[in-house]
């Protein structure tokens, strides 16, 4: 049940030289490449079915509506949501989190309430809660990240203490984009439920890599982006339990989400339309649907196993380099498909610039995780993140390139 190396041929962008070297794309945590089937699904929409949705009765409009609502049903199947109406299309993870923070948050939080999150969150699952706390007078608390290099994880003892009945929402990442730590989301949701808190899972990094079943996880909300799972930019999903969504006030308002409008006021449709004001991103929803198909055809357990194995290999090989700090979980603990590291001798930007000359695409910086980097005393790290098309041979090239850089800067 392993992935076929032939699948590289499905991704047109991989077939290119960068600085004269074959592209080795290891920046999948930022965005993944797209298979031809996804690109074609969108072109075909524009070439044949292009039209606005919902309010149209002519042939193209009905085809566009079927495509768009079909994508919603496909998304529901991909994460095993109970109803298609639990899928709200957004621009991506960031907008999904903002939607919950504004709509659910403004209506339900007040002074004395606690929003719980963790120290390993991406800015997109952190700043919206800071702002919500500021607006409502609620308090924002963080589950600490503990452990030394190579053994990072959430402090589960602290979590027990922090999960008081005042906690109204626990928002946490499934897979840390900086550490590679894969949290036990089902267990975290169960603990939160026990004190009556709702849960929001940031699945930006996990959605394209790990099998996800929202009913098994037991979460109330789940947020993800299409572009990090072989889908297009500009589209993402907020999953929310139906009763929760239907009880939430609108976020953006305008065409398509109203039942009745007078010059005095308006009434709202139920979810998901309530949360999709204006013309939606029809073509990209259809592209996203093709990405769900692509990943399910590969098999999600196989994807997960592939990505974990590459990350483990990279982790082991890089750990042998001099003066290196490798972040993330202890070996043996689950590690998602990425590895973040820092050299004493070379700064991450210099590393990325050097690697680029070898055709290797890496990311260097704070990975939208400034407070955690500050806690670790690191200005930045270099991150290699893997996807279905990456190979063991590419890991070897990465390690070789890193060795060369160290030699240059040590020289």
């Amino acid at each position, binding site marked *: 049940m392993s992935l076929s190396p032939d699948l590289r041929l499905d991704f047109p962008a991989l077939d290119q030289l960068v*600085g004269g070297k074959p592209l080795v794309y290891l920046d999948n945590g930022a965005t993944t490449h797209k298979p031809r089937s996804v690109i074609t699904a969108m072109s075909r929409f524009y070439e044949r079915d292009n039209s606005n949705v919902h309010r149209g009765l002519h042939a193209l409009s009905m085809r566009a509506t079927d495509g768009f609502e079909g994508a919603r049903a496909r998304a529901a199947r991909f994460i095993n949501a109970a109803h298609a109406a639990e899928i709200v299309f957004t621009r991506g993870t960031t907008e999904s989190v903002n939607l919950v923070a504004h709509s659910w948050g403004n209506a339900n939080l007040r002074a004395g309430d606690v929003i719980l999150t963790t120290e390993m969150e991406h800015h997109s699952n952190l700043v919206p809660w800071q702002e919500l706390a500021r607006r409502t007078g609620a308090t924002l608390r963080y589950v600490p990240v503990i452990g030394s290099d190579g053994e990072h994880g959430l402090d589960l003892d602290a979590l027990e203490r922090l999960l008081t009945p005042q906690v109204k929402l626990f928002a946490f990442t499934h897979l840390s984009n900086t550490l590679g730590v894969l949290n036990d989301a089902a267990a975290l949701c169960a603990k939160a439920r026990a004190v009556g808190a709702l849960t929001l899972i940031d699945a930006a990094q996990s959605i394209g890599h790990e099998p996800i079943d929202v009913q098994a996880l037991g979460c109330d909300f789940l947020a993800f982006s299409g572009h990090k799972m072989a889908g297009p930019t500009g589209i993402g999903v907020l999953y929310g339990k139906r009763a929760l969504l239907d009880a939430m006030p609108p976020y953006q308002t305008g065409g398509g989400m109203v039942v009745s409008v007078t010059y005095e006021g308006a009434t709202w449709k139920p979810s998901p339309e309530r949360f999709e004001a204006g013309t939606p991103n029809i073509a990209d929803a259809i592209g996203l649907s093709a990405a769900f198909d692509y990943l399910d055809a590969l098999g999600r357990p196989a994807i997960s196993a592939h990505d974990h194995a590459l990350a483990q290999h990279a982790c082991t090989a890089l750990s042998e380099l001099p003066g290196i700090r490798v972040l993330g979980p202890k070996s043996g603990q689950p590690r998602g498909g990425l590895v973040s590291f820092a050299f004493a001798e*070379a*700064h*991450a*930007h*210099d590393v990325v*610039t*050097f690697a680029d*000359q070898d055709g290797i695409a890496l990311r*260097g*910086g*704070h990975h939208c995780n*400034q407070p955690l*980097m500050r806690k670790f005393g690191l*200005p*930045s790290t270099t991150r290699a993140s893997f996807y279905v098309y990456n190979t063991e041979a590419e890991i070897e090239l990465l390690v070789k390139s890193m060795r*060369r850089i160290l030699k*240059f*800067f040590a020289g």
Partner: protein
Amino acid sequence: MSDLSDLYQSVILDHNKRPRNRGKPPTANRVATGDNPSCGDNCTVYLHLDPSGRIDTIGFEGSGCAISQASTSLMTTLVKGKTLVEAEALFNDFKSIVTTGQAPEEISDLAAFAGVHAFPARIKCATLGWHATLEALKQPPSA
């Protein structure tokens, strides 16, 4: 890796390894910080001016890549004794070097940064310390 030795000239590697004027001088009474929010680099420059408005003391702290560290270090050696107007003139020369790759004959060490022009994303790194210095020069003295 010919492009890279263009970028990482020995002057740059040297200033990166042994930065000049690192630290906060006790007499400094002006300070400005530059941030590169997209990468997390930062640089704080401390100044003291003599009565005629010339920099007589300069130091810097912060973290960043080889390009930003070396550029800031070199900059501190070049602006000492200069006024705001003179420092601005020097910065204009520097900007022209890193954006065009062309360095005028009479400019020596700054020319080491000509290779940056082939890496547009790194221009911000090369100018981080300069921006902080010019900002500090324009501030009123504190404490």
